[in-house]
């Protein structure tokens, strides 16, 4: 063993050694895991790593050790190490504050920031980097797919890991009419921002509410409601079990007036529907108003029999957005709309609509944003584009062509 040529056994021993080394470092370092340093130190680390690999490739590519590092057995052991750690990450609940114990001490409750995971990434990057260089120099057309896939993946892994040093994701809570100059980090620390946001208005567009029958014994939907819950719209007739239900009137916002309900724009006015229900087997009938209620008004419902109740569900949001003004020290104020899936950018920060005051629903005067800065993103996307192109290449060429074009070059 350990006499060249190295094969799988050595590969798995190297992986095991890295695993143990990772655990030991994790045990002896005081704080859990490792945090990647911020710019420029992460960039220096990256450049140093690249230099080392290029150096190895240039001057020592004939050495059995370097040759082995860019071979399938080394690659397989590296991929298996990452897979194993990822499986642990996929099984153990991650980043729970109260974890503790052996798993915590070894880094298994925070795999993605742990020393072992870092070790395994370095192993993959070394192998992947060396094989990419070997196939890229000299550049040959037939290696296009190979370089796109392996180089692209290398860039994604390297940029995503180093980038965590400069990645900031913070929560920002906006209250109508108050400019906010700060945000909260994940650990609760306050940070001041180079801009301020002021919420002018928060707006929700909703789907219509739905009609449901609830079993009062179980508190859940009755068995008869197998099908999609129907939307409540005036003029609709719905058949549920033996009931024939007609929606005679629908008011998207209404309040009580003189014993009936009328349209109202009052804050907190919930939707109301006038219902007539007829049971075709017993000929019983029911009539009245139902409403899902709001933070201000109670809900209204109709008993169909001793057990089943006809109710209106709370409408689901179709779209919500914050209308804000962004101010900076230097520039003109800017009006922005922040909507889910459409994050605008201010001073290098992207603004994501996350939440609002759920108890007040569409009358929320609060909007919660997540603001993100990730200067390494363009590099990660470059890797993504290469991987996408590589995938298309694989799809197009398939296995046969690559096989006949490239015979395995290392088979010792």
């Amino acid at each position: 063993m350990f006499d060249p040529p190295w094969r799988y056994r050595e590969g798995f021993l190297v992986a095991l050694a890295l695993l143990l080394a990772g655990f030991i470092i994790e045990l002896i370092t005081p704080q859990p895991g490792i945090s990647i340093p911020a710019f420029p130190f992460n960039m220096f680390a990256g450049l140093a790593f690249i230099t080392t690999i290029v150096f190895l490739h240039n001057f020592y590519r004939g050495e059995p050790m370097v040759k082995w590092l860019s071979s399938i057995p080394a690659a397989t052991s590296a991929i298996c190490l990452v897979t194993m750690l990822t499986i642990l990450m996929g099984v153990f609940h991650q980043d729970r504050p109260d974890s503790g114990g052996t798993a915590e001490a070894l880094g298994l409750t925070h795999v993605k920031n742990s020393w072992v995971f870092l070790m395994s990434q370095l192993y993959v990057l070394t192998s992947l980097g060396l094989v990419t260089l070997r196939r890229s120099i000299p550049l040959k057309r037939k290696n296009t797919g190979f370089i796109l896939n392996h180089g692209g993946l290398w860039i994604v892994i390297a940029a995503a890991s180093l980038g965590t040093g400069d990645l900031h994701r913070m929560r920002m809570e906006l209250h109508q009419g108050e400019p906010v100059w700060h945000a909260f980090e994940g650990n609760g620390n306050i940070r001041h921002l180079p801009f301020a946001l002021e919420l002018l208005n928060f707006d929700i567009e909703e789907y219509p509410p739905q009609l449901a029958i609830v079993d009062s014994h179980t508190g859940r939907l009755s068995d008869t409601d197998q099908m999609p819950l129907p939307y409540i719209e005036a003029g609709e007739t719905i058949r549920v079990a033996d009931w024939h239900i007609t929606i005679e009137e629908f008011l998207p916002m209404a309040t009580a007036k003189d014993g009936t309900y009328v349209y109202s724009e009052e804050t907190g006015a919930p939707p109301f529907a006038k219902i007539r229900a007829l049971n075709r087997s017993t000929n019983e009938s029911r009539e009245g108003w139902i409403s899902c209620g709001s933070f201000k008004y109670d809900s209204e419902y109709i008993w169909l029999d001793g057990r089943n109740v006809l109710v209106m569900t709370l409408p689901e949001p179709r779209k919500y957005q914050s209308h804000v003004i962004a101010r900076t020290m230097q520039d003109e104020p800017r009006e922005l709309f922040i909507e889910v899936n459409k994050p605008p950018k201010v001073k290098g920060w992207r603004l994501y609509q996350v939440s609002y005051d759920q108890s007040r629903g569409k009358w929320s005067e609060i909007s919660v944003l997540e603001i993100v800065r990730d200067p390494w993103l363009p590099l990660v996307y470059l890797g993504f584009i290469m991987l996408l192109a590589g995938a298309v290449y694989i799809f197009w060429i398939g296995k046969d062509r690559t096989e006949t074009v490239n015979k395995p070059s290392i088979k010792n």
Partner: protein
Amino acid sequence: MFADYTNFPFYGLLVSGLWLTGSLLIWITIFMIKPVHGKSKIVSVLNAEKASKTTTGMVTGMAGNILIVLGILLFGYYLTVLWLSLGRAPMRTLGETRLWYSFFLGLIGYTTYLRWNYKWFMVYSAMMAVLFIMINLVSPENFSKSLMPALQSPWFVPHVIVYIFAYALLGAASIVAVYGLWLEYFREFKKNLLQLGDNLVYIGFAFLTLGLIFGAIWAKEAWGHYWTWDPKETWAFITWLAYLTYMHFRYFHPNKVRTPLWILALAFVILLIAWFGVNYLPSAQSSIHVYS
């Protein structure tokens, strides 16, 4: 009002009938073939060796083809109508993704059969597809028209379609694995079976990569970061790594049979965990991906 989904039993049963009868007709032609000298009929047909067909064989084969194509067209039509009437892509719930899965299984089974002439493969794909249709018949899901804002993204449809296509291809590859293991341990293994496995995995893996990256880009737009190691993402990544191992192993050891077959079978188990099992893992308590 919900005529579209209540129609599913009609379409589902009709498509199942067409596919099962069609693939059985195609399968039957095996027995109408004059065997290649020295080989059993089954072995020569499984491996697409040239064998002369009888006229009855041609007729049944043709009829089978027609039925399968009809099934594919009908299913495609149903999915289009469902999409239009829901007013959104029917890809939100587990039940809806199962519909696409059966559709693509039928489609892929048939194209694979056309391309490589594996008759048994058409039969298996049809049976798998029908199984998924039956699951949907037995447990229909709540189909609501509303689509939460995070899902209203241009990346949603490509992400899901590409993934389901990948899953269907890799599901097909797992059939190759099981069948190959059976042949290897109890019968005579044929090398071009692993080539079929490779073809399916290469294409499936390409789609898996597309799905993973579309998902990452979408997550960036919707939630602020492209990769959060959410349990669903984590398992999707493990699946990707498993097929990666298969591809590299095959490249380095083109002549081994058992190990790649076992990797392929195991990879599919991981894929199933990623697809269904994640919801039941302790790590999934706060996943954004758990289906409604």
